[in-house]
């Protein structure tokens, strides 16, 4: 079937709901309206009001209720309308979703997939462009995934629905309708915790994910470089093996993400490489990321998020060092 990321996730949710009647969707405007990005469109008609729920406007309520459903045997898929509003449910995620399994010594796992649109580049109002992956990766207990294409989106969603863990499923709005791919009609899984090696080459490694994947591909292609492009797909727990293998091979590493530089995911990745493969490096690691400041209003966003020029200059630095 031909699918963009919106229809791929929609299809994964439909298959997941057919497979398992404990899968329940809930969130603001997800039922009758089909979600503000139309990701849940048509599912109310297919599965009814008991399984596709328009909730009152309250994020902590949505996540807390989902946790309750999960520890009582259901497999909820809450949607938070934009990642910027997920902070209203931060307590439930950090204090309970991340810890219920651990505090109950696995008697009460929290099988749940929290879907939310992330990142910018589409000129939206304040709080609609956040890249919050590190917040959810830091405390342990939450799996954080972010697909960059329709194939991965469907496979990661089905995998998440087959696990007994809370999965934070980040959907880059910029990529929702960017490309259409031919993807399998049936259910399939993309492994969680495994990176996708997109291109391979010996010149350098570009480690990235989400909205920055198309930018990495474009720059590498335009400059006709032979590079490993590593799409992490899972941000926590990430694929350290793939990262180290590539870093050892090329000795030159650029880490690229839309989240801010300071204490961003690149800091953790660079630290792992420094700890475990520093003697294989031929150049200092370079990170390319957004500025270390609150995501600006839409008029300024082109000055905030990494562009091709910034990545290209970073590549020059690791190649010439």
């Amino acid at each position, binding site marked *: 079937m031909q699918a963009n990321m919106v229809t791929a996730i929609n299809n994964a949710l439909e298959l997941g709901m057919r497979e398992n009647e404990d899968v329940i969707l809930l969130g603001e405007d997800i039922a009758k*309206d089909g979600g503000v990005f139309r990701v849940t469109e048509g599912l109310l008609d297919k599965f009814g009001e008991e399984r596709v729920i328009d909730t009152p406007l309250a994020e*902590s309520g949505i996540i807390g209720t989902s946790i309750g459903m999960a520890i009582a045997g259901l497999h909820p898929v809450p949607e938070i309308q934009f990642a910027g509003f997920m902070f209203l449910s931060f307590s439930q995620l950090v204090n309970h979703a991340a810890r219920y399994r651990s505090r109950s010594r696995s008697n009460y796992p929290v099988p749940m997939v929290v879907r939310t649109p992330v990142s910018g580049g589409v000129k*939206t109002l304040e709080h609609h462009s956040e890249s919050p992956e590190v917040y959810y990766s830091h405390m342990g207990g939450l799996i954080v995934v972010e697909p960059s294409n329709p194939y991965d989106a469907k496979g990661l969603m089905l995998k998440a629905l087959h696990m007994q863990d809370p999965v934070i499923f980040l959907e880059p709005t910029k990529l929702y309708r960017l490309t259409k791919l031919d993807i399998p009609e049936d259910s399939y899984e993309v492994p969680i915790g495994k990176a996708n090696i997109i291109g391979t080459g010996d010149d350098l490694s570009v480690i990235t994910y989400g909205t920055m994947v198309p930018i990495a591909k474009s720059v590498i292609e335009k400059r006709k470089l032979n590079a490993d492009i590593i799409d992490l797909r899972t941000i926590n727990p990430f694929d350290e093996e793939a990262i180290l293998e590539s870093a050892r091979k090329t000795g030159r590493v650029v880490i690229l993400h839309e989240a801010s*530089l300071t204490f961003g995911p690149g800091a953790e990745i660079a630290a792992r490489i420094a700890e475990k493969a520093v003697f294989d490096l031929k150049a200092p690691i370079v990170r390319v990321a957004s500025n270390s400041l609150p995501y600006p209003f839409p008029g300024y966003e082109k000055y905030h998020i990494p562009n091709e020029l910034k990545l290209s200059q970073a590549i020059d630095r690791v190649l010439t060092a």
Partner: protein
Amino acid sequence: MGVFLLKQVFSDNVNYIQILDENGVIDESLRPKEIDDKELVEMYKKMFLARQYDAKQLSLQRQGRAVTYAPLIGEEATQIGSAMAMRPNDMFVPAFRQHGVYITRGMPLETLFIYWRGYEEGDAVPKDVRGYSNIVPVSTQMPHAVGIAYAQKYKKNDVAVISYIGDGGTSEGDFYEALNFAGVFKVPLVSIIENNQWAISVPREKQSAAPTLAQKAIAAGIRGVQVDGNDVLAVYEATREAIENAKNGPTVIECITYRLSIHTTADDPTKYRTDSEVEAWKQRDPLLRVKKYLMAKQLWGEDLEQKAASENAKLLDEAVEKAEQFKPDPKTMFTNVYSYMPRVLQDELDAAEDNNYWQGE
């Protein structure tokens, strides 16, 4: 099972106020005495300007000259009625749809246009407007309003704080927490609930099982009242009275109004509501009833309306022109993060400038 001794420990009720009805008839016994016919013409003109501003923003958005916009059409009486009841020193705390409040309180129109072009400079509300910035995360402004009101009380300022929230917003925890604090601290807060019946696609009855939103005040031990939010006189009077009473504590005013248009320019209401519902509310248009009254008294007519429209158009065009001359300086992203410039942030700024990152695509 024992025998229960039943004793009622609590009861209360919520009153509803309407002064100017849909046919343009004023209940003179309830009419606020400051609002003579001349003043009512002023109110009408303000509502008319707000509506025209709204149409302008929409058309700019459709032409790609503004970002996603949240229209106010249908909610003018709630916004202008409450804003006109504020005394010069009172302060307001909006959500993100209260353009009519900003306009009434003297916000430069060009600043509003700059906001909706997508720049922080448009959210830098001048101090003399005595209002705060647009707040997008629903309901999160409510605890701020309590804190702002506490500060007034602490400093012994005779200032009331008027906050705004939608019907959907009253479902958030922050709303309940704010009312509870306001009740305990007895702060001079007037919490306007702009109940336009919809929170994007979710109708009022799916938001809460409570028959009124005003009654949420009662649980917090504070006063709650419901008014016809399309009746500018009722909104004015309820707000005026609540401000007068603010030194004794907070009031919640639920204004029953209607979102006549889209939620925002990114929304398609045909997916979730019927045209007939919208048509029914158009009969209760907040401008129409004032116009009916004023026309019957020969204080308004199509000639005056034409004149007002062309005056407004001139004001709006000039403001848009100024707003479109505004040139963003990316440095301001860095210089407004902290009270001082940390070395590590300065390094990022220098790198951006030295390497021309901002010229890249």
